[in-house]
C-alpha cells in the first residue's frame, strides 16, 4: 500500500517528503531556497531562480556590483548601458528602495482551491482534470493565483491584481521578489514548523513587507467540541511574539510587518447552508449544510466552529476570533522591533462583500464552491486590492515610492524574463 516502500522510489519519496514537511522547494540544486521548478514549493510559491547553480543568485538580494555582468537578483535588469557606461541596475534601481513581499499564511493565503469541474458530471470532459497533476504537487493550493503573491493573470478575468503585482507595477525593480510561506492548516501554533523556509539574508537582501495572515486555524478545527482546541489570546500573544522575534533576526533593516486580523466566519453558514453543493446540483440532493454535517461527523470539518448549524457555536467562534484580532492589534500597538515597523489590519470581509454587491455580485460567489470555506480567487483579489488601498492611505512608506524609471526598464528589458 505504501508505494514509497518500493526501493527504486525510496530516494525520490524521501526528497518529496522533505519538501512537504519543510515547505522548501523540492528542486533546488544550489540550495538557496529558490527553484526553477514550478510546483513542489517551486516558483509557484516564491520568485523563480534565474541561476540554480549559483546560491548567491536569487530574487530579492541587493545587486552584486550593480549586476554589471550578471543578474544576481533575478529581476531581469542587468548589464551596462553602452551610452554612458553606467550599469542599468544602478541607473534604474539605485535609491528606488526595492522590497519584497512575504506572506506567512494558511490555506487561504496559499489559495486552496478544488476546481468544481472535477465534481460536476454534466460538464466533465477530457480537459476537466488537466490541472490535477499541478494541483496535487502544489498541495491543492494555487499560490501563483493568490491575492498576496499571485503572478499569473486571474482565471476569473478580474482586473484586480495581487499585492505582489501591485508592488512590481510600482517599482519594476521588485520583479520576482515574492515568497508565499503558507501551509494548509497553518496557524500561530504551527508556524514555527515552517517559518524556516522563509528566505531573507539580513545583510545581503532588500527589505521586505511581511504579511502575517493566519486567518482561521487558531479558531478552526474538526473536533466535536472545537472550543477547547481554539488558541487563547494568551497563547496567541506568545506565539506571535516568537514569530516576530524570529523575523527581527532575519529581516533586513527597513522592513515592515502587517498583522492581519481574523474574519467573522458566521458569514459562511448564513450564505451557504441552504445552497446546493456542486455534488448536489444535478439531482438537487446535497446542500452545504449536509456537506458540513458529513465532514463534522467524520471529524474532518475544516472549521466546525463556523461550518455548523449550531448558532451558539458559530457565535462563540466569532467571539474568540475577535479576541484574537484584538490581541494582534495590541501587539502592533505596543511592541517595538529593530529591523521592522509593525502594523495591524482588520480582515474586512464585510467591506469586500459591499464592494461585490456594488458590482452586482452575491456574497456566496466569494467562497470556494467545493469546500464552502475558503475565500475564492475573486475574494482574494478584492482583499488584495483593499489591502493595497488601505496601506497606501495609512502607511505609504510601507510600499515605497513609484519608480520614475519603470517605463525605461520596460523599454530596455521588456517583461524582465517573466516569472
Amino acid at each position, binding site marked *: 500500500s505504501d508505494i514509497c516502500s518500493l526501493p527504486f522510489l525510496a530516494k525520490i519519496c524521501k526528497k518529496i517528503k522533505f519538501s512537504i514537511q519543510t515547505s522548501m522547494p523540492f528542486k533546488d540544486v544550489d540550495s538557496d531556497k529558490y527553484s526553477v521548478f514550478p510546483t513542489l514549493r517551486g516558483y509557484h510559491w516564491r520568485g523563480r531562480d534565474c541561476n540554480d547553480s549559483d546560491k548567491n543568485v536569487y530574487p530579492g538580494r541587493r545587486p552584486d556590483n550593480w549586476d554589471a555582468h550578471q543578474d544576481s537578483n533575478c529581476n531581469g535588469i542587468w548589464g551596462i548601458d553602452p551610452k554612458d557606461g553606467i550599469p542599468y541596475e544602478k541607473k534604474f534601481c539605485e535609491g528606488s528602495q526595492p522590497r519584497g513581499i512575504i506572506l506567512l499564511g494558511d490555506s487561504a493565503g496559499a489559495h486552496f482551491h478544488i476546481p468544481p469541474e472535477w*465534481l460536476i*458530471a*454534466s460538464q*466533465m*470532459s*477530457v480537459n*476537466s*482534470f*488537466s490541472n*490535477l*497533476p499541478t494541483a*496535487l*504537487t502544489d498541495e491543492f493550493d494555487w499560490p501563483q493565483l493568490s491575492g498576496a503573491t499571485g503572478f499569473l493573470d486571474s482565471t476569473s478575468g478580474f482586473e484586480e491584481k495581487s499585492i505582489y503585482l501591485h508592488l512590481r507595477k510600482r517599482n519594476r525593480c521588485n520583479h520576482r521578489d515574492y515568497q508565499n510561506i503558507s501551509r494548509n492548516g497553518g496557524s500561530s501554533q504551527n508556524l514555527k514548523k515552517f517559518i524556516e523556509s522563509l528566505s531573507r539574508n539580513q545583510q545581503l537582501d532588500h527589505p521586505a513587507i511581511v504579511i502575517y495572515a493566519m486567518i482561521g486555524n487558531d479558531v478552526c478545527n474538526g473536533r466535536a467540541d472545537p472550543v477547547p482546541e481554539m488558541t487563547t489570546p494568551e497563547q496567541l500573544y506568545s506565539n506571535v511574539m516568537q514569530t516576530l522575534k524570529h523575523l527581527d533576526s532575519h529581516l533586513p533593516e527597513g522592513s515592515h510587518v502587517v498583522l492581519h486580523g481574523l474574519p467573522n466566519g458566521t458569514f459562511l453558514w448564513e450564505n451557504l447552508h441552504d445552497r446546493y453543493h456542486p*455534488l448536489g446540483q*444535478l*439531482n438537487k*440532493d*446535497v446542500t452545504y449544510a*449536509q*456537506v458540513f454535517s*458529513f*465532514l463534522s*461527523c*467524520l*471529524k*474532518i470539518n475544516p472549521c466546525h466552529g463556523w461550518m455548523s448549524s449550531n448558532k451558539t457555536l458559530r457565535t462563540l467562534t466569532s467571539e474568540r476570533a475577535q479576541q484574537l484580532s484584538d490581541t494582534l492589534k495590541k501587539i502592533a500597538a505596543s511592541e517595538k522591533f529593530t529591523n521592522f515597523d509593525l502594523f495591524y489590519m482588520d480582515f474586512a470581509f464585510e467591506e469586500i462583500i459591499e464592494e461585490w454587491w456594488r458590482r452586482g455580485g452575491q456574497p456566496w460567489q466569494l467562497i470556494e464552491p467545493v469546500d464552502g470555506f475558503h475565500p475564492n480567487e475573486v475574494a482574494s483579489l478584492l482583499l488584495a486590492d483593499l489591502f493595497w488601498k488601505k496601506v497606501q492611505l495609512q502607511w505609504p512608506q510601507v510600499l515605497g515610492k513609484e519608480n520614475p524609471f519603470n517605463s525605461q526598464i520596460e523599454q530596455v528589458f521588456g517583461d524582465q524574463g517573466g516569472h
Partner: protein
Amino acid sequence: HSSSHHCVGCVMVMSVITQLTQVHNSTVEASMERLCSYLPGKLLLKTTCYLLVHIFGSDIIKLLDADMNADMVCHALEFCKQDAGQPQCHLYPLPKEIWNLRQKKSRHIVKKSVTMKYLKGD
C-alpha cells in the same frame, strides 16, 4: 483522519460515477471507464484509476446496480467505517430503516467478493 479522508474521497468519486451514469445514460462500468479516460497520464493518475477499477470495479457495479447510493457503496467497501459508539456518517439523507435494509443487502453482495476477502486478509 486519513480514514476520514478516504471516506470523503470515496463518496465524492462514487457520486461522480453515479452522476456520469445518469448524465450519459450508460452503465456503471462505462462510467468508470469514462472517468479514468478523463484523467491525465501524469503521476500515474490514469493507471491508478484503472487499477482501482480492476480491484473494486465488479463490487461497485453490483452495489450501484442494486440501487445503493454513494454512502452505502463506501460503507460496504469499508472506505467509510462507523467507529464504536460513533454515529454513522453519510452525505445523502436516507431514512434509517431504509438505510439498515439496504446495508444488510450490500453486506450480502460483498460477502462473496474476492477483493474484500483479500483486503480483510493480512
